[in-house]
């Protein structure tokens, strides 16, 4: 029983195993989904949909990170549609004039999601036909019409998949018609594949703390040594890992323009983590690394420091994290004099190579959506240069980055 639900959960990325399925069946066996019949307390009847949701979640999900995926999987299983978002979205589309739709579906200018949809339906005509049919259906079912909640001008298919704006729109409308627990998407903020926001800083901090606590066993553990010596009668030395570790981190931020928003959040994150690391240093550059870096975010007010000095001051055991969107004109990266700010004598890429050669472990944290990385030349180049150690700025990405740096 519930085998199809089990596989649906797995498709959505909720890590369930046979054990959880057996637990769920055992729970049903024990009558946990029954409640006394409202009219006749002697009899039992099935509990409400809410109770069922709760019981399934209790048995199947072991971490709140997966709650959002669970909610989506439940919607899929019980509603039987491919993706919740599509339906919600189309309900809204009844209010949009057709010309607007046509405009957005310019075959030469499709976005990633649109391409995906296109592949699914085969051709643009098929897609439009499917859309029209759905629209007609929706017109009949949702006579009342639902209010269009603006999503900031995203293309109609921008909401397909996990685009947060699109889903939030859907969540509100459903609440008005027939509120289902899993459609409220209460746990979206807890999903670790979302972009890092101020709220999730605590969670990212948790990962960093783990990063900080590993170390090799090279400190004498007096307590343990005494205990074991007493036990054995002969001297038995026991070592332990140093609790506060010796990890030193050097962070290089790309400042200016699009990066400003992210820089503040990350600074907070890493400042909070400062206590966990032996040393944590911040430096700033603009767009690409050249001869100088700055100590202060507001570059104009502080003296630049030559990058060579950086390489000389910090030894190879420092873990280096570059934070930036890695998006610039190829000239800025590849050529002499390509920098937009001053005349650089060596190309940006030369400097990056120097840093990579000097330090043991270097990683790049990129706030850009990883789906679009392949569309910017410089991102592709830098990623290659860094041996694919470029991570997105999500909880999951930070986790993977710290795993790499900690080894």
């Amino acid at each position, binding site marked *: 029983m519930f085998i199809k639900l089990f596989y649906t959960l797995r498709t959505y990325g909720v890590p369930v195993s046979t054990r959880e399925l057996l637990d769920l069946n055992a729970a049903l066996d024990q009558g946990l989904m029954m409640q006394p019949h409202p009219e006749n307390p002697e009899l039992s009847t099935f509990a409400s949909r809410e109770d069922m949701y709760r*019981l399934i979640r209790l048995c199947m999900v072991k*971490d709140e990170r997966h709650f959002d995926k669970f909610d989506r999987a439940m919607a899929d299983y019980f509603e039987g549609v491919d993706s919740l978002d599509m339906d919600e979205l189309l309900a809204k589309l009844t209010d949009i004039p057709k010309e607007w739709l046509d405009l957005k579906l310019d075959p030469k200018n499709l976005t990633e999601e649109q391409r995906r949809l296109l592949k699914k339906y085969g051709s643009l005509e098929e897609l439009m036909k499917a859309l029209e049919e759905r629209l007609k259906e929706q017109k009949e079912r949702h006579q009342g019409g639902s209010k269009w909640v603006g999503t900031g001008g995203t293309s109609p298919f921008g909401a397909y998949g996990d685009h947060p704006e699109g889903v939030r729109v859907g969540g509100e409308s459903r609440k008005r018609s027939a509120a289902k627990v899993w459609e409220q998407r209460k746990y979206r903020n807890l999903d670790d594949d979302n972009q890092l926001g101020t709220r999730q800083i605590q969670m990212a901090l948790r990962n960093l703390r*783990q990063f900080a606590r590993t170390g090799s066993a090279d400190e004498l553990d007096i307590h343990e040594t005494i205990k074991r010596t007493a036990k054995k009668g002969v001297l038995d030395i026991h070592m332990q890992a140093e609790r506060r570790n010796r990890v030193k981190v050097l962070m290089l931020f790309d400042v200016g323009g699009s990066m400003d928003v992210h820089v503040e959040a990350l600074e907070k994150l890493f400042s909070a983590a400062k206590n966990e690391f032996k040393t944590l240093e911040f430096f700033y550059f603009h767009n690409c690394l050249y001869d100088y870096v700055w100590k202060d975010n507001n570059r104009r007010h502080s003296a630049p420091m030559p990058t060579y000095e950086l390489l000389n001051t910090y030894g190879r055991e420092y873990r280096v994290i570059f934070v930036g969107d890695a998006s610039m004109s190829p000239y800025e990266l590849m050529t002499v004099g390509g920098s937009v700010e001053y005349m650089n004598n060596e190309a940006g890429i030369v400097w990056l190579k120097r840093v990579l050669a000097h330090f043991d472990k270097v990683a790049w944290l990129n706030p850009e959506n990883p789906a679009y990385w392949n569309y910017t030349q410089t991102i592709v180049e830098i990623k290659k240069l860094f041996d694919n150690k470029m991570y997105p700025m999500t909880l999951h990405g930070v986790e993977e980055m710290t795993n790499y740096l900690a080894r």
Partner: protein
Amino acid sequence: MSTTDKTKKSFTGTQNYIATDDLQLAVNAAMTLQKPLLIKGEPGTGKTLLAEEVAESLGMPLITWHIKSTTKAEQGLYEYDAVSRLRDSQLGDDKVYEIGNYIKPGKLWEAFTSSERSVLLIDEIDKADIEFPNDLLHELDKMSFYVYETGETITAEQRPVVIITSNNEKELPDAFLRRCFFHYIDFPEEDTMRRIIEVHFPNIQEKLVNDALDIFYKLRNIQGLKKPPSTSELVDWLTLLLADDMAQNELEENLRGEKSIPPLYGALLKNEADVSLLQRFANMMRR
């Protein structure tokens, strides 16, 4: 495990503790299927309190094991005091001949050998080393362990109800999670919050509750707070407000917009950065 036993005990919260439906289900499921229950949630939502209330509600003794960062899994089973034995042997004490004299039972031992079914609370399991939960896997599963020094095996006659709390500081290993039921305590909705307040302050004026809750939820919604106020802070704040009539007047003024900062805010915001954020916010609002 009889399923037709109509007098089976189930947890519905106590007089002093409001448990939401999903929490009740979680506790009952854990008890019925005899799996440990892992509880996570924002700080101040009543995780530790839950175990105490479950024990009280079901009339079972409560055994608490507070985990520290230096705690090892073996300490929960037993400790062998080798140093004392070495010392006693040098003093010529007869006690040394019986090794059992130096075995000190840990919390799990107590829970397993308790005469009636008990509630075992393992508090803040994420504080300990990352390997700690893994070291307990076998014991939690089979509810028994082997004492190497004396050669005896301690088995639980009645499986204790195991409640484990975590502050989410570390990730818990998968193998451990599979053996538990997991429940996340959501921050209480407004109506649950009202019931909680009612439990703590039986005769409080409704107007005061409304005003206070209004300000409380507004504060929680401010973006960028390092530590948004939680249930325990709200209860503290109300205690202070009730004791101070002047403060109650100030509360009204704050809501009407005359005073920018709520009175006695120190009970709600424990962080300097948060307080200054609030002041800036209040100044902005005034303009």
